[in-house]
């Protein structure tokens, strides 16, 4: 795993893209405005020049050359920001303050700009003007131009503004991009680093939350929850391995011993047959134990959580109850199943059937003759129209009048392979309740053990499974 390179990071590109895009847009807009403004001012100047020319021409109509020459001479002297030039057909200067016909004043150009020099107290000054020209009768040419230095100064001023703004924007932009990217990358690299450390060693660590970063905290939180789950899975796996080792080795050993001993001496056919049958039974028991371990593992690892469907718990209980009823009667127990209406839960039918069967089977097994076993299915409370989703789901309760489980031992009862002190002589592997617990976990249901008749002797066991409410579709 590497540190993410700043310039190749998604964040950097993203922020840079936005800033560049926005910048281009903003500065483009600004430049356009300024250009439009400049063009307008230029147009104004052109119009002014034209107006003056028209004025001169009008004057010329009335006073002819003498008048024009005098007017031009006067204006040349008085108006320092105007440029005039009147030339004869042969090129001689007649009047005006310009010494040379500008080359930009080609015959085809209506308006043109050119540079000229004036002599001031500080020496020669370079200036610019916009002018227009016309031909007069007799081949004379007249040029009128206005100084546009102010305009040019304004333009340069605006250019300076754009330049400064652009520079500032680029500078700030780069700074901002680097800052934001570094900050975000720093956080992400931190998360990566912690995760790597976790993977390498301590599963106990978790990604810390960052004070003000909502999205990354969401991400960190999710990663932490995933780590929790992984830790649980690893724990479940470890427990499975321990149990497999413990619970399968002993019977395997016993089987082996039985066969070994039998082979030590010659036996007759019935003798061998008997040993073979015993071995076969032993193998079947092993198989059953293995299946149970496998099922519990599956359930605890949460692998069974796919393909859950809404189904009626009451109908499952009714079916299983029907299955066990004759057994209860044979054992001399009263057996009652109470269902008043369908109780919907989200889950897997076969798993629930197994859980219900285990609970009923246990109750029937541990309750002495003459006692009673009761199974109750409670549907989730009916909601009034328009009220919010239910907070309580369906529940299943199995009550018996057997010895019960002392409160101190209830936790142990759920661990695998535990058979409590007073039930050591009852048949069957001690896996029933722990499988129910695992199935409860898969269904996100809560399993609760308590006394069914507190104060009575015996107090009896009450096993309750509280299911979460089914999500409405």
């Amino acid at each position: 795993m590497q540190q993410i390179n700043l310039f190749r990071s998604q964040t950097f590109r993203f922020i840079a893209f936005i800033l560049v895009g926005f910048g281009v847009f903003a500065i483009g807009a600004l430049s356009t405005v300024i250009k439009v403004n400049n063009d307008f001012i230029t147009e104004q100047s052109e119009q002014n020049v034209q107006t003056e020319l028209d004025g001169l021409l009008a004057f010329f109509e009335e006073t002819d050359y003498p008048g024009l020459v005098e007017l031009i001479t006067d204006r040349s002297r008085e108006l320092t920001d105007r440029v005039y030039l009147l030339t004869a057909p042969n090129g001689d200067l007649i009047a005006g303050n310009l010494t040379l016909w500008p080359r930009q004043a080609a015959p085809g150009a209506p308006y043109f700009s050119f540079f000229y020099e004036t002599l001031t107290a500080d020496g020669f000054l370079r200036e610019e003007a916009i002018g227009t020209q016309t031909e007069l009768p007799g081949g004379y040419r007249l040029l009128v131009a206005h100084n546009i230095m102010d305009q040019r100064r304004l333009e340069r001023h605006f250019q300076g503004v754009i330049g400064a703004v652009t520079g500032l924007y680029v500078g700030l932009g780069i700074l901002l991009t680097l800052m934001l990217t570094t900050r975000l990358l720093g956080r992400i690299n931190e998360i990566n680093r912690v995760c790597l450390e976790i993977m390498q060693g301590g599963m106990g660590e978790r990604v810390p939350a960052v004070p003000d970063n909502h999205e990354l905290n969401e991400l960190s939180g999710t990663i932490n929850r995933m780590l929790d789950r992984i830790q649980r899975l690893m724990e479940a796996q470890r427990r499975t391995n321990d149990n497999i080792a413990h619970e399968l080795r002993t019977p395997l050993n016993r089987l082996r011993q039985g066969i070994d001993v039998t082979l030590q001496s010659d036996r007759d056919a019935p003798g061998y047959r008997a040993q073979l049958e015993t071995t076969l039974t032993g193998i079947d028991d092993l198989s059953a134990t293995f299946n149970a371990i496998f099922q519990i593992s599956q359930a605890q690892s949460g692998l069974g959580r796919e393909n859950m469907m809404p189904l009626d718990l009451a109908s499952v209980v009714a079916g299983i109850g029907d299955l066990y009823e004759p057994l209860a009667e044979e054992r001399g127990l009263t057996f009652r199943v109470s269902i008043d209406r369908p109780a919907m839960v989200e889950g897997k039918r076969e798993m629930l059937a197994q859980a219900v069967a285990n609970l009923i089977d246990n109750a029937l097994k541990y309750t002495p003759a003459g006692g009673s076993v009761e199974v109750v299915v409670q549907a989730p409370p009916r909601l009034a129209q328009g009220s919010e989703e239910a907070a309580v789901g369906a529940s299943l309760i199995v009550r018996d009048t057997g010895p019960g489980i002392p409160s101190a031992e209830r936790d142990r009862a759920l661990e695998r392979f535990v058979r409590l002190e007073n039930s050591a002589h009852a048949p069957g592997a001690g896996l029933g309740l722990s499988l129910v617990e695992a199935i409860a976990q898969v269904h996100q249901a809560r399993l609760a053990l308590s006394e069914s008749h507190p104060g009575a002797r015996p107090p009896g066991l009450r096993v309750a499974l509280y299911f979460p409410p089914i999500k409405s579709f």
Partner: protein
Amino acid sequence: MRILVVEDDLEAATYLQKGLKEKNHLVDHAPDGELGLQYALSSLYDVMIVDRRLPKLEGLELIQALREHENQTPVLILSALGEVDDRVAGLEAGGDDYLVKPYVFSELLARVDALVRRHQPGAVRTRLKVGDLELDLLSRKVVRGGSPIDLQPREFRLLEYLMKHEGQVVTRTMLLENVWEYHFDPQTNVIDVHISRLRAKIDKNFGTPLLHTVRGAGYSLRAAD
């Protein structure tokens, strides 16, 4: 019966063949999926036993290919995967029954038998008869030797299944699956109690017992012993 076994584990295949031949079946064996499909398509078998895990062509894919070729030979799937979802996948691929390893041989025999029977089309019967025991599916009445027998709904369903599989061995698992429609492992043999109840009603006060226990396998309903 002609049976095709598609199994890559040679030891398992040998035991299977041996057991089936002892019951007078004709058995062919294919060690991988491709050969299995070839055999299945080129010969006529009454039933096929297909392991899910096979080299060259997976068991479920073999069955799918078989069905695509319009071959309806009943197939029993053998698998170490026993979850409900795995079972469903097997049946959806075109399999007819599903047995989880390790299995009891008598269970396999019973199921193979049932598959072949099921596959033989017969007229839909509304009255079942075994010996002097008669069951009417429409009126839900049971009579033996002329005397009516009062059965609860579940006892009726149980008897109906046994009679539909007259003469065959029916295992406890098959009963749990088909009469109660559950696939789990009951810790105690609850089925046995139901059978003894049924026996008390249909056999006890009558001459010949019809409901027999088959040691190590299950039960069988038949007229002669």
